């Protein structure tokens, strides 16, 4: 497949082509990276889309929530793409990806495209590929992009920095989870959803909302005059999923009204530009065999005490 064919296929919304394009973006091969960039510039679209990040601890019900939300969106006539990112790369070997088994009806729908991605040893980390994959999905005509990521490591922050709405799922036992909540996460949340509000846990979930509301009260809001939204859902029983969608839409329209939406996307692009430059510099610095060798030599010297670190650093950069 030539790059033009690929681009054309993506723009025509062909599943096979979109999938291949994402593979290209995810590839660790230098040559593929070049092609991927070309492809992305060819297919850039100006389509209006909504990008939602969905995060939370393992097992909180992200995939199940997406199954329910995705089906609802499709009923409303929208096309949905789901990018599932698993940053917990295994110590050895490949990944084993079972996410789609929890999105059984969604994954069989024509209007849905779901791509789980292993992350073991990718260039540029989670952020790069997900952002680019997201753009490809938009070019292929998907209206809403849902990015699922486990709340581990930096991935949450990375995902938050590329979406319009960042939604975090929590378990009903609020008191306990408040303590476990990661530093800095509260500040980037737009919508906090207590999942599994069903059966014996329904009441507990309601109480959790109050507790969270109190805790969040003390924070300076992410945007002036727009507070964090809270709600309880049951993804498995498909309860209040419509309310969650309303909250997402509500946020988007307020952001648009206030002109934040566009500005934020622009800013995300600028940050992204900076990040790419930095990554490239680092890659050039450590990536070439020659430089690596040079660095190793210097390291040896530092170890033996033959050279001071500051001087070594200077030498390294002089090259």
């Amino acid at each position, binding site marked *: 497949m030539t790059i033009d064919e690929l681009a054309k296929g993506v723009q025509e919304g062909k599943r096979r082509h979109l*999938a291949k394009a994402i593979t290209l973006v995810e590839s660790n091969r230098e040559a593929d990276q070049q092609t991927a960039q070309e492809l992305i510039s060819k297919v850039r679209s100006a389509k209006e889309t909504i990008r939602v990040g969905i995060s939370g601890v393992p097992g909180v019900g992200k995939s199940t929530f997406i199954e329910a939300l995705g089906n609802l969106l499709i009923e409303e006539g929208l096309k949905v793409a789901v990018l599932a990112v698993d940053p917990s790369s295994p110590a050895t*070997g490949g990944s084993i990806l079972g996410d789609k*088994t929890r999105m059984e009806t969604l994954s069989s729908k024509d209007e849905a495209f779901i791509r789980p991605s292993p992350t073991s040893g990718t260039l540029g980390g989670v952020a790069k590929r997900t952002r680019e994959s997201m753009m490809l999905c938009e070019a292929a005509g998907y209206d809403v992009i849902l990015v699922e990521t486990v709340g581990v490591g930096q991935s949450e922050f990375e995902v938050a920095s590329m979406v319009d709405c960042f939604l975090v799922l929590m378990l009903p036992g609020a008191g306990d989870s408040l303590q476990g909540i990661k530093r800095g996460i509260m500040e980037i949340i737009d919508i906090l959803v207590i999942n599994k509000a069903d059966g014996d846990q329904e009441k507990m979930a309601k109480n959790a909302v109050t507790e969270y509301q109190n805790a969040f009260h003390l924070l300076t809001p992410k945007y002036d005059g727009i507070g964090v939204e809270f709600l309880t859902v049951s993804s498995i029983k498909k309860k209040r999923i419509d309310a969650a969608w309303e909250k997402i839409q509500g946020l988007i329209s307020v952001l648009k009204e206030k002109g934040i939406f566009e500005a934020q996307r622009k800013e995300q692009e600028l940050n992204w530009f900076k990040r790419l430059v930095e990554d490239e510099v680092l890659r050039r610095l450590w990536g070439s065999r020659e430089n690596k060798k040079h660095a190793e030599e210097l390291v040896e010297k530092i170890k033996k005490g033959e050279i001071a670190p500051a001087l070594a650093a200077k030498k390294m950069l002089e090259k």
Partner: protein
Amino acid sequence: MSDNNSGKENWKKGVEKLLKGGKAESLNRQSPEGFEIQALYDSEDVSKRNTDPGYPGEFPFTRGPYSSMYTQRPWTIRQYAGFSTAEESNKFYRQALEKGQKGLSVAFDLATHRGYDSDHPRVVGDVGKAGVAIDSVEDMKILFDGIPLDKMSVSMTMNGAVIPIMAAYIVAAEEQGVSPEQLSGTIQNDILKEFMVRNTYIYPPQESMRLVSDIIEYTSEKMPRFNSISISGYHMQEAGADSALELAFTLADGLEYVKTAVESGLDVDAFAPRLSFFFAIGMNFLMEVSKLRAARTLWAELMKEHFQPKNQKSLMLRTHCQTSGWSLTAQDPLNNVVRTTIEAMAAVLGGTQSLHTNSYDEAISLPTETSSRIARNTQTIIQEETDITHTVDPLGGSYAIESMTHDLKEKAKTIINEVMEMGGMAKAIEEGYPKRKIEEAAAIKQAGIDKGDITIVGVNKYVNEKEDPVDILDIDNTGVRDGQVNLIDEIKAKRDKVATKEALLAITEAAKSGEGNILDLAVEATRKRATVGEISTALEQAWGRHTATNQTIKGVYESVYKSDKGYQEIKSKIDAFSEEEGRRPRILVVKMGQDGHDRGAKVVATAFADMGFDVDVGPLFSTPEEAAKQAIENDVHVIGVSTLAAGHKTLIPDLVKILKKEEAGDIIIVAGGVIPVQDYDFLYEAGVSAIFGPGTNIPKAASKVIDEIRAQKA
């Protein structure tokens, strides 16, 4: 005692001399169950454990549930069978009964198991294939034609669609002139293990438990000679569980059922005597004998402790056994006759009440007439040519057997306590605990076989270089399906539409409200000619269809294999591929149709991931369309179809067709599972690149898959 002590010391010295200085203890082994198997047991070992097996027919029934056991009447030869149409299966049953079989055991096809009529689009590959297709009471009547249901004990393996099938059986009998009181037999009705290992569930767990207890209620009132449930460990062992896990999870399931029935208002003595059990008997001879003895002992103790029944019979564990199908090989298949005989002996010496012995072509296809005959005769020979039946519990008092019975029982007790701490088996299953334990055990076992630590004759040792072809039973599922569809149309045309509809509505209502006995209502609907699929759907309308949470394990296979040089070579080969390709080789392991055999798929998936593949695991019960869509979106190099229930000739060509249509013809397809060699050429022609049958060495398969991807790219 002192004599004994010096005797033991002398023995040790003797051994150590033979070992040329090695310690006698070095001959002890660790069993997979997690306790030590001693090289020698003596009277001290028995007294130390403080166990007294007592007498057969008396608490705690270690030596057998009945006092006379086989000396009065041998166990029931009960062969599990069913295939194609009701008519074909009926013919087969009648022949078997003439030739010494004593009870019937019906195997339904997977469409029926999952509550679909034969005309449902999701079951095109499954009708009549792995069991008999039953869509309505009319089929059920044909199935038992000429078989007097007041005399014949009938066991039915049905769990998911248990309501319409029980109803069809009751109404078929009624129309034969036999009332429910006269019916004897067993319904499996064990839904918990379906969620764990057997995978023919339909509704969510809680709702399914309601059905179990409605059936227990119905039978305890109306069918006093009928076993309302068969609490099964068999499928757990076949899915990978060791004897301790099998024993513990089965008894814990049993406790959960008793609890549910008691909570629904039944007196424990009203139903507990009609509970029956079902275990697998594998090749670990002494362990399996001990398992049956431990099962009886522990069940009696647990029932007494938790439910204090007044009737002794409520404490008594009666069981059916089946020899292990997993232990049988596609390679050099006549070896399987030997394996089955050994396992049958263990079941008998353990004191089973009835027994199924497998056919030597178990790993190849459904049994043929010849292989069924040999399987049945394995039992008639033990019963009638050996004198084993003339002594009750002949191994009782053996130092080894008594010690192992005790150790296994203690091990199982520990596991049961863990389950209790989680809140019982239903909760543990919800958390995925037992399934995970079983899958880990399966991965460990597979690694042991692939590595050669565990011997399987003909597979990884003493291989027969030139295999003779084996005759197979091949069912024309399309033909069976067409016939069934006609029958369904006929029934639907003739019946009183309004009455059927009302009867079905009543079922949905009862399901929603929680009132009434659903089996009772289903019997009514069946009289009105509602089909199996329609009754299932009536319940589904209230409760929905359950989808399982698929968990995956990582690193277990490798933990056994790591040190192996060959294994490391495969890993390097995969790493090299990843380097060149810019990503890891990616495979979708998929199950299509209603085939719920997932042991192989799970083991292959986890092993492939350990070796360096990125592995996507598809949901159970996919259609070819769904499989293709997932493969395309994930942009896999390979689709690995795992197929064991004979749907391959329908489903794989469909998959190929869809891939081509979606411009994804370059995705390679490999197939694994129970595929008779007779079908290989058909599949190759359809577009399959490689086929991996039972006994496949997984690292070798992985290497071959890499070669195939490379060849495709070239």
